[in-house]
């Protein structure tokens, strides 16, 4: 008797039925894959439960109120939200050009012997504990900014709303600068990998058409890797939004909204870290958890927006995002 001929799909089905091990393997992998999303949901759930008394009392007004008075039990997070976004924005404004410059130099211009050591040194910045950054900021950065740089630049900048008022030291400027230094290694390292992934043929084609090296970088290499570089920036931004210790040591910790960079500010992460241990009343505690929830939502929104932007950008140069 001749065996009936099987189509390829049927043969696969047969094989699958025979192999019980595969089924177990599948279930095990599924479980592992679900652990992380479940963990995320558990975190959200925990935050919502903890924040519930504050959510019930203040509702969404919490996001637009500026008062923070633990004695009276009145809480609003607007200055914290503003400070978090403002200091992170400042940090990215400082860090991105520096990090991109370093990445471009290391991949395109630096002599070969220099690439390894300098790259490693930049990445070493990521290994410094944040409290060390905070102390360095307190004892080196702030005196430098306040006593040496500020007296020189003050006459030229004082008319700008970003530099109004007296500069005592602890400020959004100091906090943002330290954040910039802290996120720089992340942005630089990822950007460097992205630029390295640009195929040599692209570079050579630009040069063959008569472009200078600068033009090759600006018109071919950067556009090719823009999605990946954008991903690097978002990675840095995510870290800046949640950084706590160094920021709280330098930002002045004041619940106030001010455009001026030389005035103190506050961030969500810093406020939670500062007040959680000694928050005695349950509404105070709940308001802090509510702050944590807000920070979580901000991070999710920033990441989602970034993914959407990367998707938009990457349609032109899909290969460039491969490195992310």
């Amino acid at each position, binding site marked *: 008797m001749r065996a009936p001929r099987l189509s390829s799909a049927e043969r696969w089905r047969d094989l699958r039925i025979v192999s019980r091990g595969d089924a177990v393997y599948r279930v095990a992998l599924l479980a592992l894959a679900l652990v992380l999303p479940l963990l995320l949901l558990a975190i959200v759930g925990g935050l919502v439960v903890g924040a519930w008394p504050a959510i019930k009392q203040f509702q969404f007004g919490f996001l637009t109120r500026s008062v923070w008075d633990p004695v009276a039990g009145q809480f609003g997070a607007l200055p914290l939200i503003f400070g978090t976004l403002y200091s992170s924005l400042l940090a990215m404004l400082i860090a991105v050009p520096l990090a991109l410059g370093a990445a471009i130099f290391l991949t395109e211009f630096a002599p070969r012997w220099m690439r390894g050591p300098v790259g490693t040194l930049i990445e070493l910045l990521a290994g410094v504990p944040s409290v060390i950054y905070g102390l360095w900021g307190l004892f080196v950065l702030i*005196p430098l900014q306040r006593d040496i740089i500020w007296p020189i630049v003050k006459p030229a900048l004082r008319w700008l709303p970003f530099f109004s008022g007296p500069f005592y*030291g602890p400020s959004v400027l100091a906090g943002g600068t330290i954040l910039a230094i802290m996120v720089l290694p992340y942005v630089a390292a990822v950007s460097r990998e992205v630029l390295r992934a640009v195929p040599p043929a692209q570079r050579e084609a630009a040069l063959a058409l008569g472009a200078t090296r600068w033009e090759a970088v600006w018109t071919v290499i950067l556009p090719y890797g823009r999605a990946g570089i954008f991903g690097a920036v978002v990675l840095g931004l995510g870290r800046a939004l949640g950084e706590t210790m160094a920021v709280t040591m330098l930002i002045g910790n004041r619940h106030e909204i001010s455009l001026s960079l030389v005035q103190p500010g506050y961030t969500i992460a810093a406020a939670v870290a*500062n007040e959680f241990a000694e928050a005695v009343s349950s509404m105070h505690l709940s308001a802090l958890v509510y702050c944590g929830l807000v920070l979580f939502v901000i991070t999710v929104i920033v990441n989602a927006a970034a993914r959407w932007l990367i998707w938009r950008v990457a349609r032109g140069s899909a290969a460039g995002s491969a490195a992310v």
Partner: protein
Amino acid sequence: MRRIHTLVLAAAAALAAAGPLAAQNIRITGAGATFPYPIYSKWVLEYTSLHNNIQINYAAIGSGGGIRQFSDHTVAFGATDGPMTDSMIGAVNGNVIHIPTVLGSVVPTYNIPGVTQQLKFTGDLLAGIFLGQITNWNDSRIAAVNPGVSLPNQDIVVVHRSDGSGTTYIWTDYLSKVNSEWSRRVGKATSVNWPVGLGGQGNPGVAATVSRTPGAIGYVELIYAIQNRIPYGTVRNRSGNFIQASLASTTAAAAGAMASIGADTDFRISITDPDGADAYPIASFTWLLLPKQMSDPVTARPLLEFVWWATHDGQRFTEALDYASLPAPVVRLIEARLKSITLNGTPVLPANYGGRGR
């Protein structure tokens, strides 16, 4: 038959041997304030080396955490720098006793270029500065209590704690008592809505910001100021004397405050701005929280014996760590309070208890 008998005997002997072994490890856990952590860990070290069948773990997680963990019954005792409020005590059905252990005080520290003399402050002066009403060091109100000091034309920069803290509680408790506007606008708590100023993280953050900011004034724990040789000002007390904060003047504050307090006190008392010619006015107890009715028969007596020891023999370790010790009248009240704690309706400590031997 005889073999079974022997087995039973052997088992009984083994059980008897295991009995004391089981008692070997009495574990007591506590959690709370960070301010008294150095002295508490010293006490634990000394006490457990005297009684090596007892293990005591104290986690310095902050006063708020201490109160919460105590209320949730996850620890045998709590510790706090600010007493529990009436509503918190209601939440544990009144089953709590506050036991003062040591005293701390808070001092104003400042950085005024060109001024080397020790400045004098009054309560109204400090409240005015921290309310943002006195904004320059050459203000006549500061000069009025500091004759002979030439104060510069320099803006005042207020520095306060950014983290919730017992230090802030003591400071704002004092300002609330001496200044009605402060009491109305700001109040007292471990963190408050500061009218002006910069926030520094912890005592080191405040001290560093003050020492590096010309014109700054802040407040730090006396212990921190002593150990880091930070200059600080004197404060006028109720009797009109300008008092330099010290361990002795802090203990005097407790003694002064206790003079007007009855024997039935629950110890949730503020001793800021007390009576007494030598009393430093910005001082406070720090408390242990114990249940009135204990539920664990294993740890009840060892815990109370430890607290008794800490408030008696243990007080001799305070000075080396720069804490002010309890005045004698307070210790006598504590004795009565500890003896009132019960386990299943009967007092844990005998009425004639006078401390464990050794």
